[in-house]
């Protein structure tokens, strides 16, 4: 590309690229310009803007907490919070959850991928089993990852020499703002951004933009206390929905759901009916397990914004788990019509069909789910296929499906347990025992209980007693286990 080709000078070319959303090209041209003249401010500003635009992210969506941050968290006030005031629920949820501890809706909500699970076994799993990710990522989460990724490409092409730029001289200039965004979003030099922002605030105290960027930078640095004060000031100066959403990340990250709810409520008082704010509140309620309240809010979101995928998916999941399968079916079908049908949605649809006794349609939906599924989802889909087949009395198909589940996820506890039950049904006691043994490596008490029942049936009373004691430690008062224990104790006395 040169001047003669388009009849434009390079800067205009770059600007034209920028306006046509060809950010890569714009950055490239600006890099050439800056190589020629490193003090070319126009090229510098354009490059910053293009780079910012390249990594533009929805601010309301980045509240991911990474394992490293959780481990090094110094903001926690107490380790044993009262029930209903914390996200870390100790009770075992009745619903199936994602590996990060959320009910499966088919919508991966931000901020839920890395939350540490509360279960004893799950914690161990994060520490040992997943060898590839054993070292926790520290600080910054997705923000930093985005930064480093683009930083690498930019540096290869000739990065802006930030060492040569004195942030203080930019504080008073208008394009200092663009540089601030560049520092926060692209290069990940958050401390520098903080410096820049505080210098600018020194010059003009009540500047909304600088207040906001200051708060954002502080939050990214993990200084939650300071960030909170800064956000408060922004909200005083110029409240807006996005700032409320950003500010609410602080109590969420601090595990203070009630404070988060309060903040959303304050936001809703200023911006009544804002779908983002209602959705934020609904997420909090849902994670706390207040299903009825969450459902009301999800409905309100759908009323305000009928195309909100997350609200539809979550409302659908809630309906499903409260046994209103027809309603759930409608909602998931709507997602399919909106072209948002990820495998999980087809999977949920299939379960709805299964529960309203239309197994043929359920199997079709499961087939669709298999088409785009990744390995985790594949295992779930095959497992559900096995359930549908069992309900149809097709035991051979169920067994095959379970084997497929185990092929994609060899440690699928439920599948192993189910396989054990099937083998027992066929009279293969030994195969059943082996399946239960494999299943009891994972979560849940069922494999242990099944093993105990099998051991008692075959006369190995001691083994049964040991196992049933373990089950009753995990789940005190489990009906079958209590009965079995009483019978064994009678045997011992005789």
């Amino acid at each position, binding site marked *: 590309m040169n001047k003669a080709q388009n009849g434009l000078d390079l800067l205009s070319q770059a600007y034209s690229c920028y306006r046509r959303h060809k950010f890569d090209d714009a950055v490239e041209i600006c890099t050439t310009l800056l190589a020629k003249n490193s003090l070319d401010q126009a090229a510098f500003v354009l490059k910053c803007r293009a780079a910012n635009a390249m990594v533009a992210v929805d601010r309301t969506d980045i509240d991911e907490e990474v394992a490293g941050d959780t481990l090094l968290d110094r903001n926690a006030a107490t380790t044993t919070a009262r029930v209903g005031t914390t996200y870390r629920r100790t009770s075992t949820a009745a619903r199936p959850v994602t590996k990060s501890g959320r009910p499966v809706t088919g919508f991966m909500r931000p901020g839920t991928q890395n939350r540490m699970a509360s279960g004893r076994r799950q914690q161990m799993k994060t520490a040992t089993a997943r060898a590839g990710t054993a070292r926790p990522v520290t600080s910054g989460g997705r923000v930093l990852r985005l930064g480093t990724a683009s930083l690498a490409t930019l540096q290869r092409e000739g990065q802006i020499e930030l060492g040569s730029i004195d942030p203080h001289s930019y504080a008073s200039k208008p394009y200092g703002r663009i540089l601030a965004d560049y520092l926060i979003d692209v290069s990940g030099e958050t401390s520098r951004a903080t410096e820049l922002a505080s210098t600018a605030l020194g010059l003009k105290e009540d500047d909304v933009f600088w207040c906001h960027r200051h708060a954002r930078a502080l939050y990214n640095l993990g200084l939650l206390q300071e960030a909170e004060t800064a956000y408060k000031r922004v909200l005083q100066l110029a409240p807006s929905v996005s700032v409320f959403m950003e500010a609410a990340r602080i109590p969420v990250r601090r595990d203070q759901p009630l404070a988060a709810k309060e903040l959303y409520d304050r936001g809703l008082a200023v911006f009544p009916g804002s779908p983002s704010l209602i959705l934020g509140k609904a997420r909090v309620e849902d994670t706390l397990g207040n299903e009825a309240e969450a459902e009301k809010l999800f409905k309100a979101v759908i009323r305000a914004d009928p195309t909100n995928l997350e609200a539809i998916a979550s409302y659908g999941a809630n309906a499903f788990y409260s046994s209103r399968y027809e309603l759930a079916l409608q909602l998931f079908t709507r997602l399919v019509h909106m072209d948002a049908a990820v495998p999980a949605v087809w999977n949920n649809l299939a379960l709805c069909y299964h529960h309203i*006794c239309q197994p043929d349609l359920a199997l079709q939906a499961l087939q669709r789910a298999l088409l785009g599924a990744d390995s985790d989802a594949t295992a779930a889909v095959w497992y559900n296929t096995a359930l549908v087949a069992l309900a149809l*009395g*097709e035991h051979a198909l169920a067994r095959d499906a379970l084997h497929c589940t185990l092929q994609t996820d060899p440690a699928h506890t439920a599948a192993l347990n189910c396989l054990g*039950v099937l083998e027992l049904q066929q009279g293969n006691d030994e195969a059943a025992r082996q399946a239960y043994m494999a299943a009891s490596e994972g979560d849940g008490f069922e494999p242990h209980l099944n093993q105990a029942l099998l051991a008692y049936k075959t006369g190995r*009373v001691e*083994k049964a007693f*040991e196992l049933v004691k373990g089950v009753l430690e995990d789940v005190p008062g489990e*009906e079958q286990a209590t009965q079995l224990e009483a019978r064994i104790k009678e045997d011992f*006395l005789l």
Partner: protein
Amino acid sequence: MATCADRSANQTVYNLYVRERLDECLSLIDVMESAGTLTEYAIFIKGLIFRRQGKIAQSYSLFEQVVELNPNNASYLKQMARSATLLGLHSQAIQLYGRLEELKLDDWESWYHKGSCLTFVQDYDAAREAFLRANDIERHLPTYLKLGKLCVIVEDYQYAIKVYTEALGFAPLDPGLLRTVGLLKLRLGETQEAFQLLGRSLVYDKRAPRTLLAAASVMQDSGDIDAALAKYRAVAAQRPQSAQLWSNIGLCFLSQDQPFVALQCLRRARYLAPFAWIIAYNQGLVHVSLGHPLAAYHQLRAAAALKPDYAPIFGLMGVVLADLGDADNCLAAFDRALEFDPDSAEIRLNKTIALFRLGRDSAGRAAWAGLQSRWGGESDLGGSPEVSKAAKQIAKYISINRQ
């Protein structure tokens, strides 16, 4: 050879053991062990205590020790055999009981336990002999119960009834026994007697869930739905995870014309017991009454896969397939049903109706003629009022069409 000191130590151990001061007893034995004055008897008692605490493997090795010290002591051998039984080492235990026999120890307990071991290794005749020997020596309720259970396993119901009747003479007030006999009678179709036995059992144990469930199901069969539901409520408080309970409740609601509630109950029952064919069959029944032939067909197919020789499943499947308009499979289902139960007027009548509904009038007439010649007259087809009502309707339909 026991010295005087040993004897007094043994006495103390014995005293502590029979007074159920097990912890003190164990610590005394430990003291004896560290002082080097451990006696055979103390090891034996330690084994007994361990077994009561559920440490069977340890108790077994302790008994092994004492048997080594004193191979001809019958009570040591007996306890070792008992521990082996609890560990699941059935054939080993049987050998030990054989040695006891050589020692001429004739007590009911060893014969009883030998019988249980033989039941586990499926040597049923020998097991029966062992139980009978136990009863010859001394009569005990557990022996009767095991013997009865054994007879049920080998499907010798008449003998089981005989055993239980004898047991009832021996222990007429035991609620568990009354319930067991009641359930057996229920299974053999002697409903009236069964109900009486269950009622007697309930007199002595008012809240026993299994007895209540059985009694309520008899009430339900005789049409007393409200009373049955009241009993089921009492059961549900104690055993909320019982699949039979929810299945029965579901059918109660069906007979009270609340099919949707019935469906919910049955769904729960099915979730709790996915392999119970009768629940799938009941689900099919509810779907038929709701007019969902396809859903009913799926449930009935599941039931048929689990229980391939029960005529009513195929009979109902035939009705459903007629609703769905699948003539060939419909007739195949009826034929299968009649294979298992050729004398059922209901299935034959349904087949006739299905033939007419599928438009095969001539075949329907032939089937109707066959029915009439088989039972000789439309009115007393099977005895059930619904069947004779349907028969009358068909007769009317045929006579109208002929004109």
